């Protein structure tokens, strides 16, 4: 058999880059699973606040999970949280841009009008109307709805800063990493968000 034939057979038999040792992948997978399990519901709610639509929120969260796993799983786990939220916020912004384009197109096209930013179902309808804690749950649902409306009215960067800092508990540096801006910008956005929310939500808060 000639040298070329042997070499080409070896090349064809080569199965691409070698996989990492099984133990390494297993440990990494367990750690990532724990991280994603801890973060997924909160991430979903953050996406839902921004996008309103639960299916869209699920899509961007799933996309963020996949991108983190594919591209950044080998990074130190301490970096996952800001990376994940950066991917998530990018996904949210992309979807909002696509919606804006679609909305502009829909104005010119015939047929039923689609309005993804329109009013969603009344959140109070989803709360159980009976039970001993029904009044309290109704009040809570109303407060959550009011908070979400106020957050949606904020400029995107202020909303991101407020949710990452306050809801997720990221520090200023991690928030800056997640938002892709300076720490000074994070402080400014956050401060403006708190002032704006205070004005919108009133003194009862």
């Amino acid at each position, binding site marked *: 058999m000639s*040298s070329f034939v042997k070499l080409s057979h070896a090349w064809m038999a080569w199965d691409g880059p070698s996989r990492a040792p099984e133990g390494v992948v297993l440990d990494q997978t367990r750690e990532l699973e724990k991280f994603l399990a801890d973060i997924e*519901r909160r991430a979903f709610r953050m996406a839902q606040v921004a996008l309103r639509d639960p299916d869209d929120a699920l899509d961007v969260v799933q996309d963020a999970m996949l991108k983190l796993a594919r591209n950044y799983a080998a990074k130190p786990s301490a970096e996952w949280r800001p990376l994940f939220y950066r991917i998530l916020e990018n996904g949210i912004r992309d979807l909002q841009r696509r919606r804006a384009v679609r909305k502009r197109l829909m104005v010119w096209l015939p047929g039923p009008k689609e309005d993804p930013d329109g009013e969603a179902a009344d959140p109070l309808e989803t709360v159980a109307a009976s039970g001993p804690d029904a009044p309290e749950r109704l009040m809570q649902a109303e407060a959550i709805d009011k908070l979400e409306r106020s957050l949606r009215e904020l400029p995107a960067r202020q909303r991101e800063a407020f949710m990452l800092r306050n809801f997720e508990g990221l520090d200023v540096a991690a928030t800056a990493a997640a938002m892709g801006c300076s720490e000074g910008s994070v402080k400014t956005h956050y401060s403006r968000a708190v002032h704006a929310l205070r004005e919108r939500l009133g003194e009862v808060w």
Partner: protein
Amino acid sequence: MNESGFNGLEKRSRELFDASVEDIDMRVRSRLTQARHAALEAVAARPSGFFRATWVPSAAGITAAAVLAVALWFGAPHGSHGTTAADPQASFEDLDIVAASDENSGDPMEMLQDDVEFYDWAAQKTADSDPATDGVG
């Protein structure tokens, strides 16, 4: 607006957000679990970043070089790593190498042309001193 007011707003909004997270319905929870498993499968199916980023290129290069060296070594005719009549391609390549080694001295074939008589003489002397031809041994 005082600081305690801000802190109250932050605390209250955080509590409400946490409560809303707890109230996520089973359909969404199930889909999130599916999404998580899909992401984890993607990790299991890919080479780790460490190996991909640092070791794989060098390991692949070394392996490819070793395979090439072994293939060339064992692929050549046994005992004939020099020039043979059965390997005309190698003969031409060797001749090119010899010729190229004298490129700076003018005509690359000049040395061979000028010393034909010497090579004949050397070949004759070698044949004369060969024990097999002398009948000595």
